């Protein structure tokens, strides 16, 4: 259900794996390495994590989503290490009978992942690494679920 890995993933494979006879809706979120940062043009990022805790934290986020919505399947993949522009960083895919649960649960998982899961991003700009600051907006986004 949850993978933390260096290698890339195929969205189609992951979504196909969630298809079951009762699945009517699959909502997926893919996060990509973006060129634009507040202080220059990003060429790559590096992702650090806390091995012993990150998996646990993601399992907890998914369990919370499963308590709130009737879900038929959840898949979370977060990549780590060095990634260049437009590379896929994260996939959250949620399957349910109807679309509203899938949309809401996917947004919920992303909001929690962004504020609770121990990953840290360093952006490379002109060959120099800068740790990314947490965004105020992410804290606001997560607060809407409480």
């Amino acid at each position: 259900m949850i993978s933390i890995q260096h290698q890339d993933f195929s969205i189609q494979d992951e979504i196909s794996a969630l298809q079951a006879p009762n699945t009517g809706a699959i909502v997926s979120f893919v996060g990509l390495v973006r060129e634009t940062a507040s202080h220059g043009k990003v060429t790559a990022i590096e992702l650090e994590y806390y091995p012993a805790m990150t998996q646990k934290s993601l399992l907890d986020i998914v369990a919370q989503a499963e308590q709130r919505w009737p879900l038929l399947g959840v898949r979370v993949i977060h990549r780590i290490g060095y990634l260049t522009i437009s590379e896929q960083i994260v996939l959250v895919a949620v399957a349910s009978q109807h679309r509203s649960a899938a949309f809401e649960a996917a947004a919920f998982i992303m909001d929690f992942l962004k504020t609770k899961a121990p990953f840290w991003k360093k952006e490379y700009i002109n060959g120099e690494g800068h740790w990314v600051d947490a965004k105020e907006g992410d804290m606001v986004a997560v607060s809407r679920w409480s």
Partner: protein
Amino acid sequence: MTIKLCFFARFREKLAINEESYTLESTTCTVEQLLMQLAARGEVWSSLFDGSQNVLVAINQNMATLTSSVSDGDEVAFFPPVTGG
């Protein structure tokens, strides 16, 4: 008691250390007391743990607060707000 300290991201880099074994005289302490002891090491330790920086703390891989208590054998991790996804 002896605990394990772990540091991540900006903290790991600034302290130039990712983990250490740390021994205290007391048999228990709060996260706040631990932060004060680390700040008392001076220089970069002080700048990170004197309360001016946003520090997240996890005890045995669960998020902790200033009043959480630390016991012998615990793994205590210090890191900045998360920025994955």
